[in-house]
Each structure stands twice: as structure tokens, then as C-alpha cells.
């Protein structure tokens, strides 16, 4: 639920990184944090298990210039991807304005991607949101693994599995190396802003 503050000329939007467990959602935020930490006051907040799996969420504020004279403040969140954490995953989606779906390119994660997307649809439905109505960007992550000889899914297969109906913007990426991480998030923010821009006077 984006908040438009006409007094400070600021828009706050909530962007949530969703996707299967170990797909690289937290790694995306860590990469962004490493790029912006020198110019922000806050830390990245992570509520996680001892094994570094997300338990509740990661949080990072991200500013992206101005649009129509409004300063755009994006709050980046990740959800826990593990199936058993659906209660907290659902909570993080409250008030979501835009989504980055981080899919795992490893061949044996194919089913995990599909069930994570189905779970997202269900959780959005809980908040009366149809997945077709919310700004979403797909990120096909871990493309670097091909270089190590690990079999990865080709992009056409992933598009067909996940994005055939939505036809949303999509990016191949390596969150670990930082490839295409920033373009993914910028695209997600810009389509989210487009969805609310009529409200910016």
C-alpha cells in the first residue's frame, strides 16, 4: 500500500522479493546493500536462522531519485522461501506494491520455482490481490552456475513455466556476482511507480 506524502513530497513503496528457498533473494539484497551502504545511514535488517536462512524477512531502504517532483523511497523486503515458513511469508506481503520473483535456474529447482509461484498467488489472494494486477518482475538467478558446469534451465523453459500468462519483464541474473541485480530492482520500482503515478499530482 504505497503512501504518498504531499507534505514532504515523498512516496513510499514496498517491494518484496519472493521465490523458492535458497533461490538468492537475500543475496540480491546483500548485493544492493554493498552498493549503497556508503550513502545510507541505516543497516540491512535480517531476521534469520543460525544457518543464514531467512526466518521472517530482510529489510533495506532504497532511494531512487525523484519522479514528478516526488522523492521515491522504496522499502525492499525478502520473504523466507522455505515452505514451512508460510505464516511469516504471508505477513511480509501485507501492503505489498510490487514484486520481484527470484527463480532458481538450477535444473533440479524447476518444480520449486513453480510451487513458489503458486504459493505467491495464494498468499496474494489472501490480501484480495490477483497476481495479474500487481507489478511483478521475474529474475532468473544463478546464471553464473553454467560456467562451473552445473546444468541450468534455459530461459525459454523458465519463461514458459513461470511467465507464460503474466508476460512480465524478466532478467537473467547472478545475484552472487551482482549481474543484473540493479536493473531488476530498478525495473520493478519503475513499473510499480507507473501503477500509482496518476495519483502524483
Amino acid at each position: 500500500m504505497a503512501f504518498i506524502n504531499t507534505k514532504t513530497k515523498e512516496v513510499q513503496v514496498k517491494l518484496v522479493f519472493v521465490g523458492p528457498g535458497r533461490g538468492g533473494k537475500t543475496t540480491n539484497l546483500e548485493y544492493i546493500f554493498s552498493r549503497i551502504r556508503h550513502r545510507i545511514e541505516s543497516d540491512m535488517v535480517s531476521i534469520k536462522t543460525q544457518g543464514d536462512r531467512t526466518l521472517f524477512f530482510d529489510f533495506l531502504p532504497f532511494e531512487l531519485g525523484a519522479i514528478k517532483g516526488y522523492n521515491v523511497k522504496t522499502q525492499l523486503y525478502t520473504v523466507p522461501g522455505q515452505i514451512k515458513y508460510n505464516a511469516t511469508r504471508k505477513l511480509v506481503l501485507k501492503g505489498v506494491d510490487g514484486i520481484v520473483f527470484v527463480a532458481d535456474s538450477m535444473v533440479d529447482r524447476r518444480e520449486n520455482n513453480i510451487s513458489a509461484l503458486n504459493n505467491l498467488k495464494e498468499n496474494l489472494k489472501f490480501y484480495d490481490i490477483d497476481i495479474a494486477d500487481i507489478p511483478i518482475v521475474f529474475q532468473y538467478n544463478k546464471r553464473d552456475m553454467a560456467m562451473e558446469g552445473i546444468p541450468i534451465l534455459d530461459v525459454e523453459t523458465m519463461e514458459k513455466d513461470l511467465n507464460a500468462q503474466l508476460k512480465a519483464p524478466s532478467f537473467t541474473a547472478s545475484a552472487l556476482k551482482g549481474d543484473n541485480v540493479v536493473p531488476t530492482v530498478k525495473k520493478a520500482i519503475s513499473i510499480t511507480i507507473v501503477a500509482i503515478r496518476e495519483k502524483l499530482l
Partner: protein
Amino acid sequence: MSYILDQEQLDGLEEALTTDLMTLGIQSVILIDMAGNVIVNLDDGKVRHDVYSLAALAAGNFGAVSAMASIIGEEEFSLLFHKGKSENINFTKIMDDFLLVSIFGNDVSLGYLRLKIDEVINKIKVLIDRTGSS
């Protein structure tokens, strides 16, 4: 989905929170929505918290506590308060979508603060109710 608060509403909120709560000598008060957005942020000038992180955590915490309540068959827990050695934090839900976070020292009486919070909440409701959301 989004909502707008105009200058007049935000001025009204700030004024109400200042006169009713800040004058009690509390450290800071933050009005947020349940998505974790920061609407109004006031402090006594002596502290600088990481307000956006605090808001994200407060909204998440509130959501988690409400979910626990519903699992054990309670509608909600009325007392949402954490006590520290020198600072304390109190959460008050306003309508369904907003949360008032008050941070205050031991010199402030919790009972009296609660009383003042009840008063200010009524003013906040009136101010926010005029909101155009979609």
C-alpha cells in the same frame, strides 16, 4: 493500491501527537501503517533512531503477535509493550491499518501515557478518515 495524506492532515497529525504525547517528555513517537511505511516521525531532538528499520520491524512484530493471537483463539492482545532498562516501547493499533509506536523512558508513567494515547487516537482517526485511498 495507495493512499494520500495531504499537508493539512499531516500537519494535524503532527500537532496532535506533539501536544498530546511529546509534551509528556517521551523520547519519540512514530505513526506507521501496517505495510511498514512511516507517516509521522517525531522525536525529542536528543535521539536519532533508524526509523525505517524500526517501522519495518514494528509492523512485522505486530503482524506476528496478531497471528499468534488468532492461532490461540484470541481476537487480539491488548497490551503490546516491551520494557527495557531505561527505554520502553509501546504499540497501539489505530483502526485496522495503522500503528502508533511510542518510545519513552522510565520517568514517564505508562498508565498516564496510555490515557493520553487513547485521547490522541480519536483525533488521529478523525484526521485519517478523510483519506482518499484506492
